[in-house]
């Protein structure tokens, strides 16, 4: 009887806390809901008070303006973003898995020192390297090209390298040794054994760098000047400054930019959210 009462009380507490948490998360979602809801309103009814979260009449003029391609070439910015993001993620994948594998499994001289040096670069604020990088790009003649955005990703991001090293360290040495006896070189060990075993790590790497490159703002802001080369973050910032009153179109553009990330995240998160968490802790 007593036990029963205790259980019931515990359930009541759990329900109560769930309700509180639901209110909190709903509040956190409000900016998203506002963004989606206003993207379907015209600029006048957007500020109606009290707020109509579901508009009486769905207005697609914002989306038409954004995707119609008459006033602004949004499709081009979208494609620019897809191009730079794809290349950045590819570059990260190549350089960080190769580097991570070498730091974890190949016993070359100077390995620990080099790894430590690479790791310590994470402590340097980007402001220090930002100006010299700008000059290097200028000397290479790649300022105001997309190359300036994706090139650094091909040269081993410290966090990604560190992350992949963690996963490759878990690959048992015996498996690599037996492959070695069969005459496999490091490239084959890497490709056939280590990489498939580190799949969870690869998916975290690809997801995180997809999100970061998709939202990457600082690089394009510093290196890109021609409007036709803008990526989405830069383009939307530009619209916000130029067409301040046309909020509906800007909201529609923001939604269009956010949706790919949301789909990817919600679709994939159960596979690796634990891995994101633990990798963050180690970093």
């Amino acid at each position: 009887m007593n036990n029963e009462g205790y259980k019931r009380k515990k359930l009541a507490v759990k329900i109560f806390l769930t309700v509180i948490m639901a209110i909190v998360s709903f509040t956190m979602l409000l900016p998203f809901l506002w963004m989606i809801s206003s993207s379907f309103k015209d600029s006048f009814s957007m500020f109606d008070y009290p707020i109509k979260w579901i508009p009486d009449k769905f207005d697609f003029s914002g989306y038409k303006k954004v995707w119609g391609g008459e006033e602004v070439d949004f499709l081009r910015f979208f494609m620019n973003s897809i191009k730079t993001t794809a290349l950045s993620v590819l570059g990260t994948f190549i350089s960080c898995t190769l580097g991570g594998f070498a730091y974890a499994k190949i016993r070359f001289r100077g390995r620990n020192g080099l790894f430590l040096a690479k790791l310590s670069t994470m402590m340097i604020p980007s402001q220090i390297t930002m100006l010299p990088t700008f000059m290097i790009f200028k000397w290479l003649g790649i300022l105001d090209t997309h190359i300036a955005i994706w090139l650094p990703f091909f040269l081993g991001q410290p966090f990604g390298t560190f992350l992949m090293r963690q996963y490759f360290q878990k690959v048992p040495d015996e498996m690599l040794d037996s492959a070695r006896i069969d005459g496999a070189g490091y490239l084959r060990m890497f490709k056939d054994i280590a990489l498939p075993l580190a799949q969870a790590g690869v998916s975290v790497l690809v997801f995180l760098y997809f999100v970061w490159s998709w939202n990457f703002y600082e690089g394009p802001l510093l290196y890109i000047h021609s409007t036709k080369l803008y990526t989405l973050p830069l383009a939307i910032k530009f619209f916000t400054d130029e067409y301040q009153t046309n909020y509906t179109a800007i909201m529609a553009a923001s939604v269009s930019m956010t949706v790919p990330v949301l789909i990817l995240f919600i679709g994939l998160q159960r596979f690796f959210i634990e891995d994101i968490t633990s990798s963050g802790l180690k970093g």
Partner: protein
Amino acid sequence: MRTKLTSIELEKRKLKRRKQLKEDIAGYLFILPNLVGFLVFTMFAVVFSFLMSFTDWSLIKKLSAVKWVGLKNYIDLFSDKWFQASVINNLWFLLVVPVTIFLAMIFAFLMNDKIFFKKGFRTILYLPNITSTVAVSVVWFTLFNPRMGPVNQLLMALGVDNPPQWLISTVWAKPCIGLLMIWKSVGYYSLLYLAALQGIPKQLYESATMDGASGVKQFFKITIPLLSPTTFMLTILSVMNNFKDWSLIQIMTEGGPGTSTYNIGYYIYYVAFRKSRMGYASAISWVLLLILMVFTIIRFYVEKKKDF
């Protein structure tokens, strides 16, 4: 007999050396992209930035025309009102840190078996973190629009006659940005807390329950103390980010109104690319590095000593 042994030994050594050489070649080939990145975009960049911090380097000048000015840039900092304003604002923005961390801790505590649908909540809380700041900034601009924004309409409906001007007010721009910072990072931090919580043995809570300790008491007596390593790490990380992150401020207010939302990180961008005083900007970024180093050293020292 003797000579034969040494020749075997020699052979062995040779083989070993060849094997090591093979490892070396493979290793360096694998890290080649990493190494190039490190040498060019870190080593060279750091040295270049350090040297340039003693010059009057600017974007408009040719590199050959750059003049050595010694410590002038560093001395100028002391009388630079904008820099001082940035430092003071930064101290203000530090208020965001305890709020974020405390909220994150509570959310994680609740999501750790205290509620239903915890995976769903986890997803929702993480969403702001992976959303583009630019996309969200538009939401903030409209929500906090002084005349027509829903926040002020609500305040006026509640009887506030002169609601704050938010992003265009020197007083209210900071809290408005602080709110955005909290919103963006609280979910990520609570995920990190959640991972740490899962490392706390359940028996601790069970025996505390048996002893009649309430949930609130358990939170303060078990959860908070055992989470202190994570709390410490997150505090240091988030303080450091507060000093150096600049894109959010560039997007939201460009430091304004006046100097009210400059932080050190943004001021460096401003000096370099708006004033094109690259040498001076380099000097400020080295001061920033020094500030960050202090926190890194504190972290290193405390984590070593406390044996967390």
